[in-house]
């Protein structure tokens, strides 16, 4: 049975410490890098296995003190909060060492993997278990077949990754049907915070103008432009690099209208309407700082302006319900 007690580590705070430890390892003893059976599981945007192995050799040197076969497996995955997580397991015979690290970039974790492989390789040598990080508790392998667990980091170095992040979604292309007689297209943006699994976003969009035809005459109507601003709350569920979840939105729509037609003396008017909506979003984080996002929403407009041409009557009314979709880039700050 394997026991482990690994804690997430913030790389930025300990990179120097780890590098110093690695140097100590390299110069204090000879690692067994060439006998290493190394497995590297990481997203495509991460450094390659070859690059990580080269880094391990560079740190460990080329001498050998043992012919024992070693096996190391590093797995980088996305966290629920969009960061990256490294799980590193090193095995030599019946001895197992394991570390878990959280980081902001793949390059950092690749470097940390090389450093930690070297550290763990060294720590697995009974005569060198003291070469752990300076404050790391030592745990000598037992004589039994029960694998030993090695504390990856001292408790004093454990910290919690940032629980919030800033989201900026722009540019977004948007399209909607239902409010206007014809489908309308436009641009949108959103900005806000994600705290744990909750997102609070300020959203805005503008649609291209559209003519609403008069009910009582052809080639006559009102040219209407619409923009909206609102607040959206989403619950985000993550599956690796993907996220999805339901949302609720309250928005204020502003419409500007102007009559048009051969027999119309036009004037301009503007009005507003409120919209309440529910929707769903899907996200795909291509990098810790960038991703794609799509959002679909159904909204209800309980009160809508009536657009009329004096002496002729109403133009096509605005719809009470609408369906909108938007998609585009998400920047994670």
């Amino acid at each position, binding site marked *: 049975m394997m026991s482990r007690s690994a804690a997430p580590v913030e790389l930025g705070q300990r990179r120097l410490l780890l590098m110093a430890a690695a140097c100590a390892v390299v110069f204090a003893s000879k690692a067994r890098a060439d006998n290493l059976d190394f497995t590297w599981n990481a997203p495509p945007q991460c450094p390659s296995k070859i690059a990580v192995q080269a880094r391990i050799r560079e740190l460990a040197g080329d001498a050998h003190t043992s012919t024992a076969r070693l096996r190391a497996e590093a797995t980088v995955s996305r966290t629920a909060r969009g960061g990256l997580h490294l799980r590193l397991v090193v095995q030599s015979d019946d001895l197992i060492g394991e570390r878990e690290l959280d980081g902001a970039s793949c390059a950092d974790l690749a470097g940390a993997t090389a450093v930690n492989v070297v550290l763990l390789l060294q720590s697995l040598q009974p005569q060198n278990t003291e070469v752990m990080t300076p404050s790391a508790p030592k745990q000598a392998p037992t004589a039994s077949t029960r694998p030993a667990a090695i504390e990856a980091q001292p408790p004093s170095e454990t910290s919690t990754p940032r629980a919030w992040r800033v989201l900026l979604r722009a540019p977004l292309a948007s399209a909607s049907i239902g409010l206007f007689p014809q489908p309308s297209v436009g641009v949108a943006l959103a900005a806000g915070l994600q705290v744990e699994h909750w997102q609070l976003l300020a959203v805005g969009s503008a649609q291209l103008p559209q003519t609403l035809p008069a009910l009582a005459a*052809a080639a006559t109507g009102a040219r209407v432009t619409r923009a909206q601003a609102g607040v959206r709350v989403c619950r985000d569920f993550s599956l690796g690099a993907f996220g999805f979840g339901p949302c609720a939105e309250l928005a204020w729509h502003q419409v500007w209208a102007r009559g048009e037609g051969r027999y119309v003396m*036009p004037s*301009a008017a503007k009005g507003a309407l409120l919209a309440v909506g529910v929707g769903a979003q899907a996200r795909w984080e291509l990098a810790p700082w960038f991703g794609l996002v799509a959002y679909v929403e159904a909204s209800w407009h309980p009160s809508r*302006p009536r657009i009329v041409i*004096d002496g*002729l009557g109403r133009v096509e009314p605005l719809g009470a319900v609408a369906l909108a979709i938007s998609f585009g880039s998400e920047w994670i700050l």
Partner: protein
Amino acid sequence: MAPRTKLIRHLVCTGVLWLTACDEELVVGKWACAASDDAGVEDRTLPLAAAWSTGFEEQFCDYVRPAGYCYAEPEASYTVVTSPVHSGRFAAAFRVKAGNADGHQARCVRQGVLPTAAYYGAWYFVPAQAANAGLWNLVHFQGGPPSGLHGLWDVSLENGADGDLELVVFDFLNGTTHKPNTPVPIPIGTWFHVELYWRRAADATGQVALYQDDRLLLEAKQLVTDDTSWGQWYVGNLASRLTPNDSTLYVDDVTIRSTR
């Protein structure tokens, strides 16, 4: 509405109540062509274009501008309708009460110096059979000075021997009714096209010809067809004695053209 009242209403309507009844009204223009019967007579030398049409898509504006108008007696009416239509979104409906001096006609008029020769056409829809004991006029031409307008030509409906409604032409100048040699009943509840070719002439070189759905019904040549230089063309519904009294005729795609 006072600005303060408007503001309060706006806040209420778009605020917590969200009452649909509060829908705000945005006025985005003025219809500059409200049909009226008070259109004045413009320059009496103004020629009427030999190519003109209206499908009532912009209500009756094509009549109002540049030279024309529509009118109805107090108990008659004319409106645009969305059904039935011959083409486009709209057609015109002319409703009259036959025999009622205050409601027996509703028509639209084009006026000016009429073309020397032209085809005057319109699509008609008669929704129901009727018995005509007087005048049931669809198309009327008159001309002359403002103080002395007189009739020139009529295209009207009469009941044939078997009761069917048929087109006839009346020549005001000669006091003659022209009937087709082979009468063709108009269809009921179906659009049909009525077109009159009129070559105006103050001497015996004039000509008229009546077509129903592109079929030549009758033709008269070498006669005086007009003794005026300015005229009016009426399209609509005028009925003096009908059973039943109430009559609605639908009209669409009215045209003037120089060739067929």
